[in-house]
C-alpha cells in the first residue's frame, strides 16, 4: 500500500511515532527551562531524524515555521515584559533580562514542539496512521472523516483553481493589490463552498448504498507491523510524561536551568 519505507524509523508503527511526538512536545514544556527542551531535541528528536534521514529537512522546515512566531516572541517578551534588570532600551521600550530569558525559553519550547511534530509528519503516511487507528478499534466513521478530509482539502484547492481559471476567462481579476485579490476571492469562495456542500447529498446516498451506515467493525485489508518492544516503548514514554506532569503539578519537579 505504501511505497517502501526508507529507514527503520519510518517503519515504526505510526502510533509509536505519534506517541513519541506528543510526549516530546508536552514534555518540552512540562520540563521547561532551557535544558529540558534542548535535551529532548538533542537526545530524542534529532537522533531519530538523523536515523530517518530527514534531519536537514526537519530543521529547515521547523526553523521556517517558527520564524514568524520568533519575531513576535521577541517583541512581546523581550521588550514589554515587566522585569527588574534592564539590558538596553529602544525608545520607550526596555529590554529586560527577564524578558530575554522568557523569550529564549519560549522559543526553545516552540522549536521542540515544531520539530517533534514535524518529525512525525515527515516519517508517517497519514493514511497509514488513520487506518492503523481503525484497526485498534477507532470507529470506521472517525476514520472516514480523517481520510476524507485528507482528500477533501487538496480537492477543494483544485476545485478553486478550476473555478478561478473559469472566472479569469470571464475577466475576473485575481492578481494585483490586496483589495483586488480580496474582491477576486469573494466570487470564488461562494461557488467552491456551495458546490462542495451540494455534493454532500448524493455522496452520502452513494455511501449508504455501499453499506456505510453499518454499525460494528470492519475487517481491514491492511495491517501495519507492530511489536512488543514498541508497545513497551509507548507505555514507558507515556508513563514518563505522566510522572513529569504529576511532579510539576505537585510542585516537586526539580528546578532546571
Amino acid at each position, binding site marked *: 500500500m505504501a511505497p517502501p519505507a526508507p529507514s527503520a524509523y519510518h517503519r515504526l508503527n505510526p502510533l509509536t511515532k505519534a506517541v513519541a511526538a506528543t510526549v516530546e512536545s508536552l514534555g518540552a514544556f512540562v520540563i521547561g527551562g532551557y535544558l529540558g527542551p534542548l535535551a529532548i531535541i538533542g537526545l530524542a528528536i534529532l537522533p531519530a531524524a538523523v536515523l530517518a534521514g530527514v534531519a536537514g529537512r526537519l530543521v529547515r522546515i521547523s526553523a521556517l*515555521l517558527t520564524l514568524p*512566531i520568533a519575531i513576535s516572541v521577541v517583541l512581546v517578551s523581550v521588550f514589554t515584559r515587566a522585569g527588574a534588570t534592564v539590558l538596553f532600551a529602544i525608545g520607550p521600550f526596555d529590554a529586560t533580562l527577564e524578558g530575554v530569558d522568557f523569550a529564549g*525559553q*519560549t522559543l526553545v*519550547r516552540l522549536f521542540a*514542539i515544531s520539530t517533534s511534530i514535524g518529525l512525525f509528519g515527515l516519517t508517517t503516511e497519514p493514511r497509514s496512521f488513520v487506518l492503523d487507528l481503525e484497526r485498534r478499534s477507532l470507529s470506521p466513521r472517525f476514520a472516514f472523516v480523517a481520510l476524507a*478530509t485528507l482528500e477533501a482539502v487538496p480537492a477543494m484547492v483544485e476545485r478553486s483553481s478550476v473555478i478561478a481559471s473559469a472566472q479569469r476567462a470571464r475577466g475576473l481579476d485575481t492578481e494585483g493589490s490586496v483589495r483586488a485579490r480580496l474582491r477576486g476571492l469573494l466570487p470564488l469562495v461562494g461557488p467552491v463552498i456551495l458546490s462542495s*456542500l451540494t*455534493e454532500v447529498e448524493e455522496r452520502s446516498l452513494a455511501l449508504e448504498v455501499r453499506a456505510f451506515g453499518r454499525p460494528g467493525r470492519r475487517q481491514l485489508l491492511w495491517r501495519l507491523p507492530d511489536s512488543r518492544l514498541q508497545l513497551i516503548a509507548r507505555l514507558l514514554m507515556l508513563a514518563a510524561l505522566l510522572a513529569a506532569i504529576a511532579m510539576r503539578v505537585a510542585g516537586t519537579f526539580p528546578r532546571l536551568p
Partner: protein
Amino acid sequence: MTQSWVRSIVGIVAFFVVLIVGINLTGSIDFTPDPNTGLIAAGNTLVTVLIVAMLVGLVAYAATEYGQTRRFDSITSQFDTRTIVLIPIAIAINIILGQTVAAVLKVPIYLDSIGTILVGVLAGPIAGALTGALANLIWTYVLPAPFHSDYAAPFFIVAVEIGLVAGIFGRLGFFRSRPNTSIERLAVGGAIVVAIVAIIGIYGFLPFYSGGDITFFAPQAAGAPAPDTLFVILGWVVGVLLVGAVVGLLALLFVRRDLGAAYVFLAGLLCGIVSAVISAPISTVFFGGVTGSGTDLLVATFQKAGSDLGTAVLQQGLLSDPIDKTLTFFVVFAILGALSRRFVARFPQGEKAVGLMEG
C-alpha cells in the same frame, strides 16, 4: 419538548457545578507566571477543569436522556451518514479559508470556523463540537504540508466550544432568516441589540481594560498621570469599531428588512466573547501568548501597560474574537441562505435551524 429542555439544563448545571468545584479545589485563578518556566500553572488547571466539566456535562445530559427514553437518540441522530460526509467538507472549508484569509489579510480575522459552525447549525451541537475538535486535531496530526499547522491542536477546546454554541443557537432558531419584518419590529430588534452591546461595553469591557495605566474615556482623577497617547488612540479605535459594527448592523437590518441579522449578530458576539475567554489561557500556556500575527503587538502593548501575560492575551482576544466570530456567523448565515431548503431539511437539525418551508 420539555424533556429536551430538562436534559439540556441538567447538562449545563452539571457543567457549571464541576467548573466551580474544580476552580475552588485547585485554588484561585492566578495568572502570574512561574519565574522558572514561564508557565502559568493555573492556565493548565483551568483548561483541565474546563475539559472535565464539559465531559461531565455531556455524560449528565446523556444519562438523563437514557433515563427518559432508554436511548441516546438526540446524540446519535446528529451523526447520520449525511453529517459524516459533511464533516470532512466542513473541515476542509475551515482549513482552506483559514489559511487563505490569514495569508491575504494581515488582520486577526481568521474565518477558520465556518465549517464547524455550519455543522453545528445543521446537525446539532455535539456534531459541531466534534467537527471543531477533529478539525484542529487533523490539522496538526494528520494533514501533511502545505495544509499542516503545528499550532492548531491545543485550540481544539475552543473549536469544541464554537461548535457547541453554534449548534445551540441553531437549534434555537437564531440563524433563521426573517425577511419582510415590519419596521416596528426591526426598530425593537435594533434597540435591543444596541442596548445589549452598550451594557456589555460599559459594564464589562471598559472596567476590564481600564485597570492600571490604561484609561480610555474615564475622567482623570486629580493627580493621576496622563494616559499614554498609545492607549488613548487604542481606546478611540475600539470605540469606533464598536460603534461602526452596531451602525453597520442597523443599516443591514433596515436595508434587508431581515430581523435574522440581529439574532446572528448577538449570537456571534456571545460566541466571540466566550471563545476569547477560553482561548486566552491556551495561547498563554502553550505558546507564550504569541501567534505570529499583528495582534502580538496589542498583547505587547497591554503587557507594557501593566497586565500580566495571561490578562494581556485575554484583553487582545476580547477585541479580535468577537469581530471574527460575528463575521463568521454572518458568512454562515449567507451560506445557509444560498443552500436549497430541500438540501438543508435533510440534515438532523436543518428544519429547526432554517425554519419550516411555507406551503
